[in-house]
């Protein structure tokens, strides 16, 4: 087996890219705008540049924060049974576990998964990409901020929550009549915006900008 490392000078290593999932080594080549370079053996997306992506990601992250404020303050769902009615906000759903001792820790987790983590990730991304979009040097701690944002990714569960809402509604539909509040639609929109935001981020380009900027 040939040993390419012997042929690659140390300062050429930043032109190489290794697949984080399977360790396959490539010469980093920027694909054309809007196209994606994927790992040949495990198909992980490695580079996906997009013109004006930073500004778009920031706009989407701001939208996430605004929608989340709306989704947590406006009424979410309401039920009516034989004259009794009750309305619940997103926050109420998360805090449903508060009353019983150990259950309170579950309330903390649910608040984190559906509200705090999505908002925190949006805020971190704005902090990291804001200066880059303006062509300035990254702010202090930007690398750590982006790391935290990436680590939190699997723990952002807004989209799972909205499917949970759908399942819950079929469960109560034979018990009560249900009304959707404005927060329901905001939360549904939020799910779409989060997906678009994460899809528009090219990690390779962002790390590269954070590197040369520091």
């Amino acid at each position: 087996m040939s040993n390419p490392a012997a042929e690659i000078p140390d300062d050429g290593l930043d032109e190489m890219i290794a697949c984080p999932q399977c360790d396959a080594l490539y010469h980093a080549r920027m694909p054309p705008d809007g196209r994606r370079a994927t790992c040949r053996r495990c198909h992980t997306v490695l580079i996906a540049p997009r013109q004006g992506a930073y500004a778009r990601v920031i706009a989407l992250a701001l939208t996430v924060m605004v929608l989340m404020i709306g989704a947590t303050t406006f009424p979410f769902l309401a039920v009516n049974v034989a004259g009794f009615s009750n309305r619940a906000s997103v926050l109420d759903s998360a805090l449903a576990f508060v009353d019983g001792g150990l259950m309170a820790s579950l309330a903390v987790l649910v608040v984190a998964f559906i509200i705090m983590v999505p908002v925190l990730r949006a805020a971190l991304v704005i902090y990291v990409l804001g200066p880059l979009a303006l062509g300035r040097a990254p702010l202090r701690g930007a690398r750590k901020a982006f790391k935290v944002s990436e680590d939190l990714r699997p723990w952002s569960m807004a989209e799972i929550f909205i499917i949970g809402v759908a399942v819950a509604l079929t469960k109560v539909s034979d018990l009560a009549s249900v009304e959707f509040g404005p927060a329901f639609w905001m939360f549904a929109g939020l799910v779409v915006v989060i997906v678009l935001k994460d899809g528009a981020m090219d990690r390779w380009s962002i790390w590269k900008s954070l590197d040369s900027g520091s």
Partner: protein
Amino acid sequence: MEIAGQRIVSARETGLVACRRCARVWPMGRRTCGRCGSALRSRDWGSLQRVWAWLTVGIICYIPANLFPMLKTRVLFSESEDTIVAGAIELALNGNIGVAMIILIASVAIPIGKFVAIGYLAISVARPERLRPAQRHRLYHIVEFIGRWSMIDVFVVAILSALVQLNFAASINPGPAAITFALSVIFTMLAAISFDPRMIWDRDGQGPDRQ
């Protein structure tokens, strides 16, 4: 993407260590990534221990999650307690077969499938293995992608408990299984995150590349 060599080689085979976070490569032996500041490890054998530890607590939490009630429902003066499976059966009997399937898949099939898949992957990288690396890696992708969705049932319980609080008419409250189930999902996610899938590809999938 242009491969570095005659065939696809790993950074490790090439005498390089790759950063799993930012994909930058460095000469073998370097400790921290100069681009993103992460710790560098060519292969993290200690990760297997973490995988087994998280997986074990995940499985332990899953047992009470199925024995205790997930929901306590009170309609007028009759009270009922539903475990995950009992709740799904009731839904199916009421004609909501589609929703019953979602619950059974998200709360039973996916968690058990994940336990088996993660355990298999952890065993498979420690010995010569027949299943090809590409297939094992696909299994890992599926486990990573799908694992979070088991959280659906916890959210269903949360929404129902918040919504159905109607004085005498009806109330729904969470049962103890809600917390053990949530913990089981979280621990299993941590097990999947701890796994280092790069080991699947070492020596063409023929066991560990310890040097």
